[in-house]
């Protein structure tokens, strides 16, 4: 692997389209074996896409959320696990770009741009489950460094990452709402993998359990001590919801395209009549679901991009509602779309592992969407935020 510090922002979609066939070819094996797609990660490192969101001044692509969404959608059409691995890395990079100390940025971002550093995310914790803005394990101040001991039950790509962004309680005597985000370089971190990732879907993400121990310099605190909530609302939640929605859409869109191509081909299952009202109604509904997610993704991505360009905060009830709606809606509609395709295609094409169209894999993969940051949590949050927006400012 020879990392090439390219400047891919304008060509991110083209680079993603170039990688997609390779990812598609390997997706079945990655899923069956539950293996981390290390070859795909190497290809991503070499492409320059790992540094898409790194500013050009650091040698990165200088891309924005629109470039991210487009590349994620395209790559997910090949392999959803790989696209999510990349999307979550970009989510970490965005947080670093916008909130890391200048020292950490100078040290880390050029390496990210060169494709040398793949960053995994550690937010989930055993006791608190998915609750993002709280933490149990506490940082301990030991002179110039911070000691970090963290149990991390779900870490996508944890075994392969070169660094970790970890949420920790600010100090042993701090309340669990005072969360610090810290960067721990793999070289300086003791890692122990426990448990396996034998999940229904998203098997290539190898989202294993890990124990991390490190002493990190104080400059590695991202966004200031105890101030993770601001990093989450400004960057991690927004970029995560946009990138994940794009990934799920890309997978469902590719499944739909394959089904349409199959129906147009002489190989179509004899039991499916493309002229029947039942078939066309199902196709119509599925297409409409994808249209709605695509349009809303576009709209919310543009809203975040606009706020960023104008230096406006996105920590407002309407924008947070739009971001939550994007995530929940994309999770529900893309899963429903593939579920309907299974019904439309019937047993042999829809349900079999040997089908020419991997609908059963997509179905299992997309089932994770509602869980990967629980839709329930987002729905209740959105309802509360809606009470603060009497004028109902829609996206």
């Amino acid at each position, binding site marked *: 692997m020879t990392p090439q510090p390219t400047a891919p922002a304008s060509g991110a979609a083209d680079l993603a389209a170039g990688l997609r066939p390779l990812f598609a070819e390997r997706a079945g094996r990655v899923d069956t074996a539950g293996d981390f797609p290390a070859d795909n990660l190497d290809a991503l490192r070499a492409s320059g896409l790992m540094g898409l969101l790194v500013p050009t001044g650091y040698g990165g692509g200088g891309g924005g959320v629109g470039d991210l969404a487009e590349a994620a959608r395209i790559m997910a059409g090949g392999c959803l696990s790989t696209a999510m691995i990349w999307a979550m890395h970009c989510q970490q990079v965005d947080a670093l770009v916008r909130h890391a100390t200048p020292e950490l940025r100078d040290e880390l971002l050029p390496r990210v741009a060169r494709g040398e550093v793949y960053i995994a995310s550690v937010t989930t914790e055993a006791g608190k489950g998915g609750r993002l*803005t709280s933490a149990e394990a506490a940082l301990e101040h030991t002179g110039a460094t911070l000691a970090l001991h963290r149990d991390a039950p779900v870490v996508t790509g944890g075994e392969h990452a070169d660094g970790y962004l970890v949420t920790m309680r600010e100090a042993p005597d*701090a*309340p669990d*709402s005072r969360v610090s985000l810290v960067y721990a370089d793999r070289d300086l971190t003791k890692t122990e993998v426990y448990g396996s990732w034998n999940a229904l879907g998203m098997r290539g993400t190898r989202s294993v359990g890990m124990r991390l121990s490190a002493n990190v310099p104080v400059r590695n605190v991202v966004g200031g001590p105890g101030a993770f*909530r601001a990093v989450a609302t400004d960057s991690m939640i927004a970029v995560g919801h946009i990138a994940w929605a794009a990934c799920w859409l890309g997978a469902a869109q590719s499944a739909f395209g394959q089904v349409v191509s199959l129906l147009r081909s002489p190989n179509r299952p004899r039991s499916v009549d493309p002229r029947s009202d039942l078939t066309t109604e199902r196709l119509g509904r599925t297409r409409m679901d994808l249209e709605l997610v695509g349009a809303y993704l576009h709209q919310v991505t543009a809203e975040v991009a606009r706020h960023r360009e104008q230096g406006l905060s996105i920590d407002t*009830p309407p924008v947070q509602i739009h971001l939550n709606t994007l995530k929940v809606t994309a999770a529900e509609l893309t899963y429903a779309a593939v579920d309907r395709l299974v019904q439309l295609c019937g047993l042999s094409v829809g349900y079999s592992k040997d089908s020419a169209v991997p609908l059963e894999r997509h179905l299992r993969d997309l089932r994770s969407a509602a869980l990967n940051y629980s839709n329930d949590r987002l729905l209740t949050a959105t309802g*509360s*935020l809606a*009470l603060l927006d009497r*004028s109902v400012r829609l996206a």
Partner: protein
Amino acid sequence: MREAPWPPEFEKLLRANLPLLDADAPLDPGLNLADHGLDSLATVGLLMDLEELLGVTIPDELLEQTSFQDPLAVWQLMASAAGDGAAPA
């Protein structure tokens, strides 16, 4: 002891939303509410309770990230909704 700028009912409601504040600790005007257990979603319930208690309606435009940072900010938010910057009725 200096008198608090707010009525006891206000303090009672606020304290009910601060699980991490000891019952006998003072409610300092600059107390960081988030650090004492007021999470961002709990602020919605608190806001509605305060509106009912004080008979005011806070326009959405007045709500900012800093509106619930400490007791004084909350009290001033209520006061501004009462119209002339004076304490709400």
